[in-house]
């Protein structure tokens, strides 16, 4: 007895030929380009329009900025992954500062961490890069920075290197050769979570983070 | 963008069945507008209907039989002008598909390439220049769906109206929304069609225009029917007649 798979494929293969098909002209995807400065300004404009908070900062200055942003929100702990560079920078910058936030690590499996992950008031992650056209962050979760860091806590702070900004999604994917190896989960994040399901009125903070703060690191 | 021919010495005129039976004066106005440009108008008496009503109702064979009779009436390689975007669309866009594999396929394809909606022809082929001799009036324009979306005729009618110095053209709020005629749709889904034409009539009245001008008699019959039923002060007229009366 043939399987559903066999039946479906057989029926598809018995069908009319497609005839002449239009070719795929990707030039409309290739053409969109901006200068480095324009890309940053565009990302800021696109993301701000959907309630993202963005700040330009430096490699030296971002840990203090993070502390300041959390203090403004009366948040006293920050969840990060096990990215050593981040851990070192934050611990280094905040060491000895009495009012600095508590650093919590998402360093075990979800099953062991879940209560804490869901209770964390804020999380910080790096990003792989960004996309200027749509105002999007490229986030590839991995062992060091698990998926839920950018999803569960109500505040997500993301570090974006200014020189990792692509023009468009298509160009990013092509330039970086994504088809040669995607992680189990790859994400584009373009703002805090939102909905317009109630009379098409836009409200922020549905199931994902209520706030997305992007720190653009220049130099 | 369609490639338009040079102004010809002669054209065929295909009146369309709605014009023939309900708005013959619009047909005559169209003919006169063409003749005024020095173009001879040939009117094959054997013409009847483009076949669209049957085609849209799932009766393709009947549509083809009637369409075949029309195709044979326009053998000369000259333009065929229609005072209807809807019927022009049928001939231009659907005749090739209707006659695929048929003995008349080549003739039908040839015909489809020579079909023009009246305002499109007046603007792009005849290059008419209009001088308004009429009294000041406020009008609004309703373009049929097929005129706009099958024939790509959107600005031509309005550009003709804008040439008339004493005509104030006010746009409808929902200019591109269907009036609800849709041929047999108006009797197959009468409640929805009625809702659509009611809204269109309201939109027209809100412009405070004295007249609604259209290039399609199906829409005209639908819209003026609704306006008359509610004793509206607004009347309707085919664009050919409107232009002719003001520029005679």
């Amino acid at each position, binding site marked *: 007895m043939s399987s559903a798979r066999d039946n479906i494929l057989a029926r598809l293969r018995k069908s009319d030929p497609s005839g002449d098909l239009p070719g795929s002209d990707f030039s409309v995807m290739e053409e969109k380009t901006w200068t480095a400065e324009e890309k940053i300004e565009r990302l800021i404009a696109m993301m701000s329009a959907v309630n993202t908070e963005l700040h330009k900062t430096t490699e030296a200055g971002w840990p203090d900025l993070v502390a300041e942003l959390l203090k403004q929100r009366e948040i006293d702990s920050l969840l990060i992954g096990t990215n050593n560079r981040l851990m070192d920078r934050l611990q280094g910058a905040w060491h000895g500062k009495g009012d600095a936030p508590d650093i919590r690590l998402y360093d075990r499996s979800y099953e062991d961490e879940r209560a804490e992950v869901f209770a964390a008031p804020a999380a910080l992650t790096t990003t792989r890069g960004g996309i200027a056209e749509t105002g999007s962050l490229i986030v590839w979760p991995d062992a060091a920075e698990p998926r839920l860091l950018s999803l569960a806590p109500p505040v997500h702070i993301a570090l974006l290197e200014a020189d990792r900004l692509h023009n468009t999604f298509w160009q990013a994917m092509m330039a970086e050769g994504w088809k040669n190896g995607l992680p189990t989960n790859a994400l584009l994040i373009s703002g805090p979570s939102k909905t317009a399901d109630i009379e098409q009125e836009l409200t922020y903070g549905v199931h994902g983070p209520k706030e997305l703060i992007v720190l653009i690191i220049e130099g | 963008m369609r490639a338009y021919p040079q102004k010809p010495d002669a054209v065929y005129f295909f009146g369309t069945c709605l014009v023939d039976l309900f708005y013959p*004066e619009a047909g005559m106005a169209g003919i006169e507008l063409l003749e005024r440009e020095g173009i001879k108008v040939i009117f094959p008496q054997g013409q009847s209907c483009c076949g669209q009503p049957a085609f849209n109702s799932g009766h393709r064979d009947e549509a083809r039989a009637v369409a075949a009779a029309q195709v044979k009436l326009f053998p000369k390689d000259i333009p065929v002008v229609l005072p209807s975007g809807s019927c022009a669309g049928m001939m231009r866009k659907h005749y090739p598909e209707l006659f695929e594999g048929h003995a008349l396929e080549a003739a039908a394809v040839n015909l489809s390439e020579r079909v023009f909606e009246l305002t499109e022809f007046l603007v792009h082929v005849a290059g008419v220049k209009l001088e308004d001799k009429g009294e000041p009036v406020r009008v609004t324009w309703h373009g049929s769906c097929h005129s706009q979306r099958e024939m790509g005729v959107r600005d031509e009618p309005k550009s003709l109206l804008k040439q008339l110095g004493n005509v104030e053209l006010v746009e409808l709020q929902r200019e591109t929304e269907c009036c609800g005629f849709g041929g047999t749709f108006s009797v197959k889904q009468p409640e929805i069609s009625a809702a659509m034409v009611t809204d269109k009539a309201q939109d027209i009245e809100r412009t405070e225009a004295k007249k609604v001008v259209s290039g399609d008699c199906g829409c005209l019959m639908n819209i003026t029917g609704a306006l008359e039923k509610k004793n509206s002060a607004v009347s309707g007229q085919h664009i050919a007649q409107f232009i002719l009366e003001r520029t005679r």
Partner: protein
Amino acid sequence: MSGPSGDTFRERAGLALKDGELRANFRRAMDGLMGKRAAQFADADEWQRLRGLGESIRRRALSKLPDLLEQLEENLTNNGITVHWAETVEDANQIVLGILREKNAKTVVKGKSMVSEEMHLNDFLGRHGIRALEADLGEYIVQMAGETPSHIIMPAIHKNRKQIARLFKDRIDGFTYTEDAKEMTAAARAELRREFYEADAGLSGVNFAVAETGTLCLVENEGNGRMCTTVPPLHIAVTGIDKVVEKLEDVPPLFSLLTRSATGQPVTTYFNMISGPRSATDRDGPEEVHLILLDNGRTRIYADAETRRSLQCIRCGACMNHCPVYTRVGGHAYGGIYPGPIGKILTPQIDGIGQYGDLPSASSLCNACVEVCPVKIPIAQVLVRLRDEAAGHCSRPSVKESGAKKSTVQDMVWSGWKWMHESPGAYKFMSGVLTKTGNLTPAAAPLLKEWTSVRSKPKFAKKTLHQLAKEKGLADE
């Protein structure tokens, strides 16, 4: 299913037309969506080129569909995702049940999936003691109301805030009545956060399934999709076999067309690309991921090259947003799962002409949908094809229950019409009769009765154009 009831589209539409609140809700919503989309595609050149690319991508994928499905299965499997095939919704439901039972799953949280609506999955699971909870806010509202979605992108578009507030008051413990959208959203967030945390399984649809890499792509704004596909230990994805794209590079053009056409957004909050369950080094993500590929009539639609065009759809909803009929009657009047123009071509093909053969005629063929379809589906052409099938006059019928609306009366009417119009002599005779006596037909006569309910009777002219042209002496050839 609530909303307008009635056996035919015409009956349901008639009821909807009388519902002032519904009409106002839809008018407002559609106007907004149309305006937002127009702003996104202000550059006409970019729009035409991008939709041309989108059309080519969808048609290319469909032309290779069996091969791509095999490639998709192979790559998904290599990525650790288990692939299942289902010919019918019954089979698909049984597969889902089997997977859930194996894990002793009692609660499933759901992201938005129109395919799961085709399956009537929630009811099915409910009958088998498994709770399926919608987590997309619009679906959550609709589920709460015991209804089905009335729009494929904005399921609760038919409800205004008062109606939603009343629902929340009735169904959410501790909810203080408010019509403020922010506060209602916050209440839903709190409720559903608990559900994500506790759920045994998450279920999602798929926007694009990439054959080249074995990747499932999900588009969303709220975050519930990510929650459903990340938190529970089990993730089940369901999709139609038509959602496959060939290459990863095909995705960004379609994604751009989708979000801009659907809600006028340049991008959605999240674009979620899943290429496997939790890996050996990941700390979170589901341990098991399954994909169910559903046929449910798609292979039949695929068989004919013309009807195959219906499968290009990327489910953006732009067609219904621009449809003058949909705007006035809303989604429930269509009766099937998919409303609007795409529904008018899919539902009769999936569920048969017998029950839904009237849908293709519920269109004035205005082509507004054709104008905005981001993948250039020739919707009007397929509607006319389905009218041929319904009337039993298709030269190569292929649709389910083709000919089910064949009517001797209709056949006679059109035979008569043909006779009257194909012979110049017959036409001359009949038009002569009509000009003399047509105006005597009473307004209450069949067909005229419907017309004259809101319009005055059409008036036959005294002389036809043929006569006037002859009198003027116009050349005949």
